C-alpha cells in the first residue's frame, strides 16, 4: 500500500477564541485579526497562520498560533471596546486532529453523516457536525486535508474512532504538506 493513503495527526496547541457579537464588533475584530471574519455560512477565511471559522450567524472560532494568544486576546478586546460582543478564550477547551490523504473522506464518513465530496464540502468549508457520538467542528483546509476540532474530553474517543477507520487503509501518521 502506498504510505500516504490515510493519515491521522494531532495538531499542535493553538490559541482559540470564540467571538460572538454585533456587526460593529465583528468588523473591528476582523481589522485587527488580519482576516475579515467570513459572513458566508460555514466558511473559513485564512491568512498566514490565522484562521476565522464561521460557526453561526453571530459566532466565529478564531485560530492563531499558541504563542500569540495573550497578546491577541488583549488586542481584540481593545479593538471591540464599545461594541457589544463576547470574546472568550477557549484555547484549552478543544484539541485539533488532522485527517488527510486520499481516504480522508472515507475515514471521516465512518462517523460523520455529511456529504464530504469536494462538490458538496469544498476547501474552506467548515461546520459543526458529529463524528459518531461526539460533536466536532470539521474544516476542509486542503483538497485532501481536514481539521477536526473536538472538545478535549472527547478527543480520545474521536481519535480511536478515526484510527479504527484508518486501519484498513494502512499505517502511517503523516502530516499533509510534509
Amino acid at each position: 500500500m502506498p504510505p500516504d493513503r490515510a493519515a491521522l495527526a494531532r495538531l499542535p496547541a493553538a490559541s482559540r477564541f470564540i467571538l460572538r457579537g454585533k456587526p460593529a464588533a465583528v468588523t473591528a475584530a476582523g481589522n485587527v485579526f488580519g482576516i475579515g471574519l467570513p459572513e458566508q455560512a460555514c466558511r473559513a477565511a485564512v491568512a498566514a497562520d490565522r484562521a476565522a471559522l464561521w460557526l453561526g450567524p453571530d459566532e466565529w472560532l478564531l485560530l492563531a498560533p499558541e504563542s500569540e494568544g495573550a497578546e491577541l486576546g488583549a488586542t481584540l478586546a481593545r479593538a471591540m471596546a464599545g461594541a457589544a460582543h463576547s470574546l472568550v478564550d477557549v484555547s484549552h477547551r478543544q484539541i485539533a486532529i488532522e485527517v488527510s490523504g486520499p481516504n480522508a473522506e472515507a475515514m471521516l464518513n465512518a462517523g460523520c453523516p455529511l456529504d464530504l465530496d469536494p462538490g458538496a464540502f469544498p476547501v474552506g468549508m467548515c461546520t459543526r457536525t458529529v463524528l459518531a457520538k461526539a460533536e466536532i467542528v470539521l474544516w476542509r483546509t486542503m483538497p485532501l486535508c481536514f481539521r477536526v476540532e473536538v472538545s478535549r474530553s472527547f478527543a480520545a474517543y474521536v481519535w480511536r474512532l478515526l484510527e479504527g477507520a484508518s486501519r484498513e487503509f494502512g499505517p502511517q501518521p503523516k502530516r499533509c504538506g510534509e
Partner: protein
Amino acid sequence: MSANFRTAEDGRIDRSRPLGFRFDERSYQGFPGDTLASALLANGVHLVGRSFKYHRPRGILSAGADEPNALVAVRRDEARYTPNLRATQVELYQGLSAESQNRSPSLAFDIGAVNDRLSRFFPAGFYYKTFMWPRKAWERWYEPWIRAMAGLGRAPTLPDPDRYANRFAHCDVLVVGAGPAGLAAALSAAEAGARVILCDEQAEFGGSLLAESDATIEGKPAATWLAETVALLALKPRVTLLPRTTAFGYFAYNMVGLAERLTEHLAEPDPALPRERLWQVRAREVVLAAGAIERPLVFPGNDRPGVMLADATRTYLNRYGVKCGSRAVVVTAHDAAYRAALELHRAGVAIAAIADLRTAANGPLPEAARAAGLPVRPATTITGTGGRLRVTAASLAPLAAESDRRGAEPLTCDLVLMSGGFTPSVHLFSQSRGKLRFDGELAAYVPGHSVQQERSAGACRGVFGLAAALADGAAAGEAAARAAGFSAARARSFACHASGFGTGGIRSVLPNAHGAKAFVDFQNDVTADDLVLATREGFHSIEHVKRYTTTGMATDQGKTSNMNALGIVSEALGKPIPEIGLTTFRMPYTPVSFGILAGPSRDELFDPVRTTPIHDWATAHGAVFEDVGQWKRARYFPAPGEDMERAVARECRAVRQSTGIFDASTLGKIEVVGPDAVEFMNRIYVNAWSRLGAGRCRYGLVLREDGFIADDGVVGRLAENRFHVTTTTGGATRVLAQMEDYLQTEWPELEVWLTSVTEQWAVIAVQGPRSRAVLEGLVEGIDIASRAMPHMSVAEGRIRGVPTRLFRVSYTGELGFEVNVPADYGRAVWEEIFEAGQPHGITPYGTETMHVLRAEKGYIVVGQETDGTATPDDVGLTWAVGKTKPDFVGKRSLARPAMRAPGRKQLVGLLTEDPHFLLEEGAQILAAPNQKAPTKPLGHVTSSYRSATLGRTIALAMIAGGRDRMGEMLYVTTAERPVPAKVTSPVFYDPEGARLDAA
C-alpha cells in the same frame, strides 16, 4: 469419496486451484468461485438440512438469497460461529468448515423426524390449540419444551472478536442489483456524470448474466460484455462498486442500508479489514434492479432433496460447472424450465420427461426442446416423488379431470426441476412505502405508486428477458440521472441476442395434491393443507392466515412461498388474489448480523469515555472511579487495605480537620458575556443578580417553565458584563441549550452571548481549615486573606505562573477554594498544590466524600433530592428567589396554588433511632410501623450516608409537610421491617456556618 458432478470445463470457477472444505465432518473439494451449495452439489450432496417442524430431510432448492432449506452454520472458531447462513450465499474458501442444523444425532438419522410421522397431530395453529391448559403447565412443561424445539442453529458462545465498520455515503444514483438491468442503469447514470453507487449481494456482478450460456450483447458473448462493462464502471472515479453488499433496508428520505461483507469469503482474513461494513447511503435517486425469484411448484413430496428450482440448476451448470444430477424430470408451468432442460441435456444430463402443466406447450422454447428430442408432455402434472434422503423417482400423471395418484407413472430420476414462473422482487420497493399493484396479465404484484425518489427496472417490475431488462435498466438509469439534475443523460441502447424468456406461471397448489404433504413454505414447514385448514377455521385475511400457519414468517420471509400461499388462499376462499391482501415486506431483505448494526460502537467506543486533565494522576494514586454520565470521576482513593467505607471516613476527617483536594473539572461552565448579561441572568435564574458586585459569587437556581428545579450551581461575576456560570456535571449541556433557546426564541433583543467553557478550565477544589494555608504560597496577584477574599468571591490572578480564576466557595461547609486553570495546566497545578499541601496533610478525596460532606451540610444534589417535581420552597431554597424581580423562568408557575399547597413534600433530615443503621436511598417513609397495605407513604429517603464526623448515619428525605414534623418519629421501610427515624433539620453539621471562616 463422493461422486463428481462437475462438468469437464466452463463455468466461472478457477479449476486450477482446488479448495478443501468440510461439511458435517466430511471432507470435500471445490474451487474458487464456488458457493458452499455449488461445491456440495458438485460432490453429489443434496441433503444439507432438516426442516424446522417435521425434521424432514431437505436439500438445496435454489441458487441464491431465496434459499429456504440449505441453512448451515459456518465455523472458523468458537467466537466466529455463524448459524443460519444460506449455503447458496456462502463463498467457498480453503478450509471452510460448515455444519448442518436442526438434526440429532446426524443429518442422515435424525430423531426429530418422528415429528414427521406424527404430523397429523401438528396441524396449523397447533400451538394455539394444544398449549391451552392447564395454565400451570406453561411454566413447567410447555414453555421449556417449546423453547427447546424452537429456533434453528445456535448462537456462538464467545464474544465476537472482529471489527465492524460504518460508512455514511451520498450519491446521485444508487443502483441496487448488478444484473443486466442494474448494470445498464449504472452505465446510463455514470455516463451522464452522476455519482453512482452500484451494489450487489453476490461476489460477482452480473446477476442472470453469470448463468448465461449463449446470449450476446453488442456482438460479444454475455460474459465478455459483463467483464468489459464492470471494468468500464470501475474506471469511472465517481462510481463506487460494492459487490458482496446486500441492500437490506429502504428507509425514509432515500436512505438505504447496505451490508457489505469484506472478509467472509477469505480463508485468512486480513486483520486490517473490518469483517463487515454498514453503509448508510443517502441517495438522490434510487434504481431498484432486484430481479425476480422463481416459484416452486406445490405438490406432494416437493421438498425431497433433489427437487430444485429449474433456473437454479441452470445457474449451477453454467456458472459453477455443476450438474445437479444425472437424470432429471422437469415439471413446469413456465417456458423458462425448457431452457434449463435444454442446457442440462446438452451437458449430458438425461431428461426423463418434461411435464408441462399447461394444456399446450408451444412457443420457441418447447419447440426447441422437442427438436432436441426431449420428451415433452403437455397437460401433465406431478403427483409425488419417491426416495428418502434423495429423490429417486417422480410420478407423472395426465392432467385429465379426476385422474388420481394411483394412475401415476413413476419415472426413475435423481433430480426434479420445477418452475412455477417468476415473482418480481418488490421487497425494497415495498419497504420504501411504495404501493404495489397487482398486474393481472403477469399475475404478479409489481411496483405501482412510488412515494420516494426511486424507480424499479427489469425483472423486479415484471420486465423479463435479457434484451428487455437491458433496455429497461438503461431507461431507468437515464431517468434517475435526469431526476438527480443531470439533464444530458441518455439511455444507452444495447444490441442483444438471447433466447426468449417465454411465458407462463402458476401460483397455487397442483391438482390432486391435497391430503399429502405439499409444501408451500419450506422453511416453516407449512403445507397447502395447512393453509386450506386455516381458511376453514375462519382466517380469511392473509395477515391472519400468515400468523396462524406461520407461512412466510421464517427467516426467508416467504421469498419462494408468499405468492403460492396467496394463490391457495385465493382458491380456497373463491376470491381473486388482489382481494386476499398482501403481507408486509419487512427489512432486512436477508438477515444481517448484530455486529454490523453495532458497528464500531462496542468496548471502548461503545460510548465516549470522558476524562479530566487530572484523571491520570488519580489513576496513578489508586482512585476508584464511578461513571457520571459519560465522565469518569474519582469516587474515592483507598489506602492499602481500605474499603470504601473506611477510605471515605478518612477522607471526610481530613477535609474537616486539615484539608482535602478534589477534582471538580467536570462541573458545567458557561461564560455569559455582553451588555445585557445581568438582565439575562435575572431572567434565567430565580436569583437577583443586579446587586451582585464584580468579584462576588452567588448560589444560583434555574427552574423550568413549570416552576420545578432544573439545575443549580455557583455563579461568579467576573466583571460588569461577564459571568462565570457553573452547572451540575450532568446538566451542563441541557442548561446551555435551555439558555440558548431562550436567547434565540424569546429574547433575541438581548445583547448577551453564551460560550461553553466546561472543558477550558480544570477545577481543583481545595477544602478544609488549612486550605488557605496551602494556597497562600502558590497564588500570585490575589490577596486571599479573609477580609480581601471573603466566602463567595472570585478573583483572577496566577497560581505558580498559570492564569487562574480563583473562587472562594464551599460545597463542604469548610473554608474552601476552587482553583480554575486552563485545562492543559490542570495536572501540573494539581501536583503543585498537592505538594504544597503535604505539610498540612492534604488528602485527595472523591465524589463519595464530597457527597457525605455536602449531605452533612444539607446541600442538595439536583436530581437526587429533587426529582423534577420539587420547587425551591420544597427544598428550603426560598431565600434564593428574588421576590421583587418582574419575571424569571418559572415564576408564573410558582404562583399556582398547587405549588404552595400544604402537604407538599419538603426536604428534611432523618436520624435513625439506631445511630449505625444505614437507610436505603429511595426507601419509603411511613407514619406508623405496622400499617396494613395499601399504605400511603409520606415520602422517601433521598440521600443516606455514614458520617464519620458525626459518628452516626444521616439521611436526607422528602416528606409531606416535613418542616412541620420536626422531632416526629417516622418509620422507614427496609427489606425486613420499618425502622424508626426522627425528623430533623437537613443541616446536621455547623448550622451557623462558623466553619466557613475557621482556619
